[in-house]
């Protein structure tokens, strides 16, 4: 199956030709796209990779969240999904006494966490137990459309490596479209610009070359 753009309602195939993957729905024996996106086949599944849309959390995703509220035994965190996520005291690397939550994380704090659990009612639980999870203490957060995250990472990390080498910045990419950057001011500014270019031209080919040229021209003029 070629990589082509489909829209909601495009017929992708029959159920005897492939399994129904993400971004699709089934009517009888037919599999249709439910999204505006690129159709791709992987391991027998027919998927549609969306070109736009809000963050749709998947268990295991590393994300960057903003604490909305500290309750007695948990925090509500905005992860850019249609629902706030809950971070319980059992899921943080610190020992938090009852009612002491705001001593560790307060409203407005930014954290790196993982999506732990999503139930049928779409209640989301996140966790900070993994090694890379922490509070964001310095640097900046750039927000892009979550559907463009794969482009910023690139095939086998090729794009993000290019960005790191080309700017000397430290980069952490959250699956929810939030990117944490640390570095010198002018390098950070260049990186932010590069990321915005990738976001705008994510669907075009030759992007890696364009970014490579852009980063070279910036470092030469510095």
């Amino acid at each position: 199956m070629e990589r082509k753009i489909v829209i909601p309602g495009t017929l992708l195939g029959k159920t005897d030709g492939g399994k129904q993957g993400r971004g699709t729905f089934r009517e009888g024996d037919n599999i249709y796209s439910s999204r505006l996106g690129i159709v791709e086949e992987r391991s027998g599944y027919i998927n549609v990779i969306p070109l736009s849309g809000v963050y749709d959390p998947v268990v295991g995703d590393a994300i960057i969240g903003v604490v909305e509220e500290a309750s007695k035994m948990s925090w509500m965190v905005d992860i850019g999904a249609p629902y706030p996520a809950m971070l319980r005291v059992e899921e943080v690397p610190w020992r938090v006494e009852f009612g002491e939550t705001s001593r560790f994380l307060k409203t407005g704090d930014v954290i790196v966490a993982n999506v732990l659990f999503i139930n049928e009612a779409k209640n989301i639980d996140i966790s900070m137990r993994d090694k890379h999870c922490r509070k964001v203490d310095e640097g900046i957060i750039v927000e892009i459309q979550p559907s463009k995250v794969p482009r910023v990472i690139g095939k086998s990390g090729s794009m993000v490596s290019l960005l790191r080498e080309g700017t000397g910045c430290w980069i952490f990419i959250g699956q929810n479209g939030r990117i944490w950057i640390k570095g010198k001011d002018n390098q950070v500014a260049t990186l932010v610009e590069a990321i915005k270019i990738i976001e705008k031209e994510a669907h075009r080919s030759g992007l890696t070359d364009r970014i490579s040229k852009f980063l070279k021209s910036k470092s030469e003029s510095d």
Partner: protein
Amino acid sequence: MDLIKDGKRLDGRAPDELRPIKIEAGPLYRADGSCYLEWGGNKVVAAVYGPKEALPRHIQDSTKAVVNARYNMASFSVEDRKRPGPDRRSQEISKITSEALENVILTEMFPRAMIDVCIEVLDAEAGTRCAGITAAAVALADAGIPMRDIPVACAAGKVDGVVVLDLVGEEDKKGDADLPVAIAPRNEDILLLQMDGHMTPSEFDEALDLALKGCRTVSKLQKEALLKKYKTFEEE
């Protein structure tokens, strides 16, 4: 005044001819999805925000997303300035628009969430509710809202005893009947249907058939608009 003379309508169109239509996907910066549409003298802009948490909480549905479409006409969009704010007509159109769109959106994927659809008529020339739904549908696809199909709408009517497609101002005011129709184009499921005026059952059949033909044409334009936004991907 004759509304039809020598087989031609006031604006020179044949009875089964649509007004010129132009559709642009994603023109707005802030909205999650958007569409700008010109249909004859109509100018409509639609924007979608969501899915997002449904607030205030009492409007939440624990099983699916709430679709909240708001149709509004700008004060300067009509000949006699309209006072800002929703009037009863706008509220009715908002409701039936929400219901039409809800049918195709996979709302069960987002319980307790809401999807806001804002339709703003900037310049009006009859057929604004059809233009509004057509634009909203493109904005929803642009926003990445999962849907079973992309709804489209078109109106037919009766003027001087003749069944015609896509009524324009005078025809709407002085005609014999007006029939706006919205469908999910894949199966041609009827999502919105209103009629006022006077038609025999066979005139209705003829008018509905004509409206569906119009819908099919406009549906192609919606698809082109969405693909055009990303067409450079194909330039490989």
